């Protein structure tokens, strides 16, 4: 960048905006990256601004707008738990222009982040309750934030059950953490892959997440459920949970909608009476049932 416009003697410059607008991202450094699957990557990010590094706080379930400069912004939930300060993580699948550009970033590179935005899972209200996590594919990313949040505060909760599945063994994300959770005595970990997605040495279950959820049949007594995955998985998991006796108020999910601004202006994530970016992304099954089928 050495050959930009030559420096002439000082001329009264137009007055630059004194403060950032709501659309200006904070700069972050990529401090680590992990390939979860062949097309899914986790970036660990640290704010460049030291004060912000200290002060940044969020709740489990909130999201942000991540910038790859030159490609644009993308919306992801913060995949790391609020109980682990200092850095945040995002996990994304390479499907479009921005995610492809984010994948080009190396450790040490700069990207942008705006957030945290949206509401969160009411983890603080779940004291003493059992927590059931149901996730499919990359839908584990927002759920993982809640799982670690709960595990980091393990004493506050009852039984923890995780039912997680993906299309194939290769598509399971956070593989090391799945092993870690499976090895914990205080977590009931159930991992499954869709029929045909298993490998010869696969020792988990085989079956679609809603089916396996029905087989595992966790008790609904004093239990809240957190569900996230592809729309079809969510759609078929809700009736299973209802059959198990879960009340709609105790079932939560996080909705994926296309977003641009993240702050309730651009109109894109509007569905029924809600702006997913402001009223969500976390919704209870009770709220979801009042929504038109446009998610």
């Amino acid at each position, binding site marked *: *960048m050495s050959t930009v416009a030559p420096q002439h003697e000082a001329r009264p410059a*137009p*007055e*630059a*905006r*004194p*403060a*950032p*607008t*709501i*659309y*200006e*991202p904070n*700069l972050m450094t990529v401090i680590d990256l992990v390939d979860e699957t062949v097309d899914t990557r986790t970036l660990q990010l640290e704010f460049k601004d030291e004060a912000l590094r200290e002060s940044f706080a969020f709740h489990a379930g909130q999201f942000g707008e991540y*910038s790859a*400069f*030159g*490609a*644009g*912004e993308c919306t992801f939930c913060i995949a790391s738990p609020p109980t682990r300060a200092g850095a945040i993580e995002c996990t994304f*699948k390479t*499907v*479009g222009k921005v*995610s492809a550009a984010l994948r080009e970033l190396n450790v*040490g*590179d*700069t*990207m*942008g982040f705006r957030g945290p935005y949206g509401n969160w899972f009411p983890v603080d209200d779940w004291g003493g309750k059992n927590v059931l996590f149901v996730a499919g594919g990359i839908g584990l990313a927002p759920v993982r934030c809640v799982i670690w949040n709960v595990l980091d505060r393990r004493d506050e909760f009852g039984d923890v059950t995780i039912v997680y599945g993906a299309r194939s063994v290769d598509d399971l994300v956070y593989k090391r953490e799945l092993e870690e959770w499976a090895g914990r005595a205080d977590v009931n970990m159930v991992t499954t892959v869709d029929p045909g997605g298993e490998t010869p040495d696969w020792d988990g279950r085989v079956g679609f997440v809603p089916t396996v959820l029905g087989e595992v049949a966790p008790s609904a007594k004093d239990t809240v459920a957190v569900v996230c995955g*592809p*729309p079809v998985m969510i*759609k078929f998991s*809700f009736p299973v949970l209802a059959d198990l006796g879960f009340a709609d108020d105790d079932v939560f999910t996080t909705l*994926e*909608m*296309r977003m*641009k*601004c993240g*702050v*309730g*202006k*651009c*109109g*894109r994530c*509007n*569905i*029924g*009476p809600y*702006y997913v970016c*402001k009223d969500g992304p976390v919704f209870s099954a009770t709220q*979801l*049932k*009042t*929504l*038109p*089928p*446009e*998610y």
Partner: protein
Amino acid sequence: MSATPETDAAPGAEILFLAEGELAGLVADLATAAVEVVGPAATEPASPAAAAADVLHGRPELEYRTLAPGVAPLLAPGMPRLSLKGFFLPQTEALFAWRQHGTEIEIERGEASARRRVALGVKPCDAAALEIVDHVMNWDFADQPWNERRVATTVFTLACPVEDGSCFCTAVGLAPDGTRGADGLFTPVEGGWLVEPSTEKGAAFVAEHAARFATASAALVDEGAEARRAANERVAGHLEIDAESVREWIAGHFDDPLLAGLGVRCHGCGTCASVCPTCHCFDIVDETDGVGKGTRRRSWDTCQTGKFTLHASGHNPRNDQNARFRQRLNHKFSIYPLRFGEVLCTGCGRCSRECHAGQDLVEMLAAIDVAARRPAAVGAETESGGPA
């Protein structure tokens, strides 16, 4: 929301008169003070056909423009094709620029959008839209570029004679002589305009240019009042709806064939959103300028295109034009009122006027209003469908 015409002059306030001959002087004063003037101007006919159309209509097509210093706005009947919104939410604008230095990124903020401006001859429906869109622009997070332009701009509406049958401002609680979102009103009368500031900002503007204004005679005041009354009466006949029952009906009849089939003729071109004074949805994209630098821009967008809601996965929550058109009506007449207490529409009629497919909002609202007043049929839907 009832169709009460707004009468904005404070009781006992003196009504001023700006003689036709003084307009040029006023604009010259503004040029001297380096205040930008925005107002209607004749569009350069883009083709012989457009020129012929101007002749046919007996007047040029208008557009709002930032006028060259000293040029007076055309304070005449006629509906500018685009609303005033582009002066507050530009069709495209740079949010910031960025520059890469190795692994580092430097963000270069743009200028604050605070040039002092006065908009003269604004349609009351276009001014009202500013105040209506203020809600969403300041909902929790304040949109600085919008707010800076709002603060920097003084707006005077021009009492509207009612353009054509697509106008329906009174049906959405506004009036052809309103000053919502504006700082004062001009009313055309013999030899000039009655001028009535309605805010402190408007009063300050008038005070600053006091030499240009005279006190209006009682006869001129009567003439203006009569014209305004007649315009209100004329537009009130175009459409009358009960906004609250329309809102409730739309919210509760998601799958009703009337609502679900309204988009059948729609091409999804988005013209309605472009010309709409209240449509404010936008896209945010990066534009690169060679290697290692670029700008992040926001540009108008519309819920009428398929890509608006398309997920990266390929899933599209609103996959057909009926669903997208329903969303437009939903947002304007159900969601926005529920969230911000008023409809996201000023009855300017541009969407009906400009639609290539003949989608007519006046017709649709009338039909929905009739449905909303009809006693609920047995077995009718009571709440929006819920997840399929």
